[in-house]
């Protein structure tokens, strides 16, 4: 933000006692994060399997509803609800 105090080069190991160093995330040294690439796929526990099954069922129902509505609107069923 433009009203923040000006930044300067700071050596963290030479900061006086009882002082604090404020560093913007973009200027800070990179942190070691969790590397998902090395883990591979998520473990298929019972809750994960059930959740994905519920999701597939939900998507199937919604897709059928949308298809039905489009067919209905097109008059293919011989009647229209609109």
């Amino acid at each position, binding site marked *: 933000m433009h009203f923040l105090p000006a930044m300067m080069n700071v050596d963290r190991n030479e900061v006086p006692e009882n002082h604090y*160093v404020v*560093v913007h995330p*973009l200027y800070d040294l990179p942190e070691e994060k969790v590397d998902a690439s090395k*883990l591979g796929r998520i473990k298929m526990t019972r809750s994960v399997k059930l959740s994905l099954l519920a999701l597939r069922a939900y998507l199937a129902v*919604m897709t059928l509803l949308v298809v039905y509505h489009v067919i209905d609107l097109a008059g293919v069923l011989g009647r229209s609800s609109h």
Partner: protein
Amino acid sequence: MPEKVVAISTAGIPAKSPVVRGRVVRRKWAYHLLTFLMVFGPGLIVMEADNDAGAVSTYVQAGAQYGTRLLWLLLLLLPVTYFMQEMVVRLGIATGEGHAAMIYKRFGKWWGLFSLIDLELVNFLTLVTEFAAIALALSHLGISPNLGVPVAAAGLIVVVLTGSYLRWERTVVFLCLLDLAWLFIALRVRPSFSEIAHNTLLPGIPQGGVTASLVFLVVAIVGTTIAPWQLFFQQSCIADKRLRFADLKWARLDTLAGAVFTIVVAACMMIAGNAAKMHGVHFDDPAQMANALHLITGEGIRLGILLLMINAAVLGTTAISLSSAWAYGEVKGWPHSLQMPVRKAPGFYATYIAGVGLAAAIVLIPRAPLQLIILGVQVLAGIMLPAAIIFLQLLLNDQELLGEHYANKRWNNRVNWTIIIVLFILSLILAAQVVAPNLFPAS
């Protein structure tokens, strides 16, 4: 006393003395305040950008139809939207990667592509509605959309091409804060504060009972307040801003502040719609409402509402376009950062520019099927939101990925599964209503 810090290079070898660009302060409160201000941004932007053109339309319509009787719903949605985005914050900080990348890596190619394609489609259609709102507001301001829409698109492209995340963030935060003008508009229309307090704190069904119109509006409000693109946007934004583990509490505060800000602004939009109801004003869109209220509240309010419509659409466009560009870059493995110049991340910027440019162009086509597009957005978003939240919930319970510290606690899961089940039910009700319109009595 700060601990000695030793920088570790990617090879695991201690690097040179850790010199960083920073500021030394003596007071702890100054340290906390400055750190918060540096972390602040993604939370406010993701929340306030959700008050886009569609949201303005939904909230003023809710106010016009039901007055202030649905304000309690906004208060109920405040913790819901915070819980959802707080999970995104934890996931983003812990992994340093975007949501699309996480789904792709942990759930495989099929689910990864499903999430990506659904996001890109919903986002693109939403962009068209944003530019449609810009065109509408501009025409009421006496500016030709054929001139104004390309200028708006060009501005939205320029703001991300600077190669500086901070420059983009500061611009967008400024635009978010402009929405405080809705507070002024709400006060200007002289609402009844006791009525507002009563309807905010005490849930109730408006006069007329549960009708198809009410159900549709409630689902629209919920769908407007919690949008799929927000999950992808904030996580990618946090990854691009490189927030650190130590920033978690400030990122949560940023998200909470954003949630409160957004709900207050949304309430003000509803109060503005209520003013139209109180004066017997009928309208089809917020621009018409602005023109009609002009006779009651003056030219200033009319101009204010029209300009805020444009602001809402601009905010929505930049956030949604970026969520698409980031997600696509993550899955394709392209460089994807606002910190990079165009020549170093051409695919990322091309995706952004293509989305904005194409959406703007469609709006300028005479007799473009905008109503069909708006309906398509509602249907696709209704399909996508539960799916996006299920993946978020599963990832936040992924102890192998996050460890015990960052994974959900038991109470998190109880709250979140309740929210997910309610969202599933609302989506199914919306779908059922579209297919069987006589499910609920007509209003």
